[in-house]
């Protein structure tokens, strides 16, 4: 019943590719006759893989790198906020993305200082490989995702004032000035041990992704001062905040046919069959925080 164009995406996304691959093994009769191959490029990804006998099977043959455990924890949390146990997208989430990709750095070097509290600089070079990004996935927002573990329970809440600057290493062309980006924000530690901090780097990343750059090499400098400097000298047991290299989170709008466009139905004035999404806020923090409320929300 979809009247949308049949623009198939560049490559079938993992989940569908798997289903297609198993289906082709189960029902060889589904092979497309030779003549149909001419329309191959127009076929939705589903049939592409069905007619492609040679596709690797998805069970054990394809080696998969194990994801970072913290990153996995964050994405599971995002999933719980966004969908029911049965996997039905929840109605209340008001956002325009239908895809969120999390990349962990595949190269990091030069940790200058690790102790954040004394105002040392935490510097790290990060290389993110974004090959999994498809041509039909359009960037809506990108954030560096830091997770802070406080080793010692903090008796009362502490606020840091942090500065972050990013410089892009563009080895390919020394001519064009590399893009840099800096911002300041306050980091508030309450009782919770783990803090996720999303630092918006959309304006930094947008031009790189727009030029189809898939290897993003950046130098990130991160410094934090106690919100009230006098206090830091009086702390009997200094708070030790370990800072691990950040992950890169991309909020995307997948425009391919098999992706869900619930918010799009709203735009066309039709109520989406499953859920109504808020139209006013272009993006809402996936943790359900609309940007008001605690300082973390404001920063995000």
């Amino acid at each position: 019943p979809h009247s949308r164009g049949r623009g198939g995406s560049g490559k079938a996304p993992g989940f569908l590719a798997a289903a297609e691959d198993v289906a082709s093994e189960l029902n060889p009769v589904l092979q497309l006759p030779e003549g149909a191959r001419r329309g191959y490029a127009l076929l939705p990804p589903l049939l592409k893989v069905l007619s492609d006998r040679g596709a690797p099977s998805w069970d054990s043959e394809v080696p998969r790198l194990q994801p970072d455990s913290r990153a996995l924890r964050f994405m599971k949390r995002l999933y719980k906020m966004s969908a029911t146990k049965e996997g039905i997208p929840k109605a209340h989430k008001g956002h325009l993305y239908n895809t969120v990709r999390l990349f962990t750095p595949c190269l990091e070097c030069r940790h200058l200082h690790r102790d954040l509290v004394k105002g040392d600089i935490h510097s790290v070079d990060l290389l993110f490989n974004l090959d999994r990004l498809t041509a039909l996935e359009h960037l809506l927002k990108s954030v560096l995702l830091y997770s802070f573990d406080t080793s010692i329970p903090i008796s009362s809440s502490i606020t840091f004032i942090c500065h972050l600057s990013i410089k892009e290493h563009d080895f390919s062309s020394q001519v064009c000035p590399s893009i840099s980006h800096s911002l300041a924000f306050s980091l508030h530690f309450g009782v919770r041990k783990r803090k996720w901090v999303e630092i918006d780097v959309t304006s930094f990343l947008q031009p790189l992704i727009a030029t189809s750059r898939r290897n993003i090499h950046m130098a990130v400098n991160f410094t934090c001062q106690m919100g009230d400097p006098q206090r830091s000298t009086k702390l009997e047991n200094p708070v030790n905040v370990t800072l691990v290299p950040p992950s890169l989170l991309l909020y995307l709008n997948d425009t391919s046919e098999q992706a869900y466009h619930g918010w799009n139905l709203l735009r066309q004035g039709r109520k989406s069959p499953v859920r109504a999404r808020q139209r006013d806020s272009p993006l809402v923090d996936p943790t359900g925080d609309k940007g008001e409320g605690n300082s973390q929300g404001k920063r995000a």
Partner: protein
Amino acid sequence: SRQRRNENPKAAPETSPYNLSEYFKQFAFPQNECELHNFRLSFSQLKWDKWIIAPHRYSPQYCQGDCPRAVGHRYGSPVHTMVQNLIYEKLDPSVPRPSCVPAEYSPLSVLTIEPDGSIVYKEYEDMIATRCTCR
């Protein structure tokens, strides 16, 4: 009518309950009428749970059953469906009767691990059948 029968027992023949139900059967809907059936699977059955993190269970559902002759008002079927039924019944039984297929779907959110170790949350269209129709 009972008084009339007593006065004149030969006039109105008794319609036995058996004939009555036979008579109405031609208007009744088929016993296994086209409708939505439950089906639930877990990705571990397909051995995909190594890279599909969530959901653990998935209920795609499916449509099964015979399409009654009067499909218009119940299934919102186009007139063509009744025409196809007539062709099957009156003209050419090799033309298949209308089929019971999904008419509406709902999306599914999936959390997966990609081959390069990155993690993706995706919402797929049309993954769960929610209503059936005859076409």
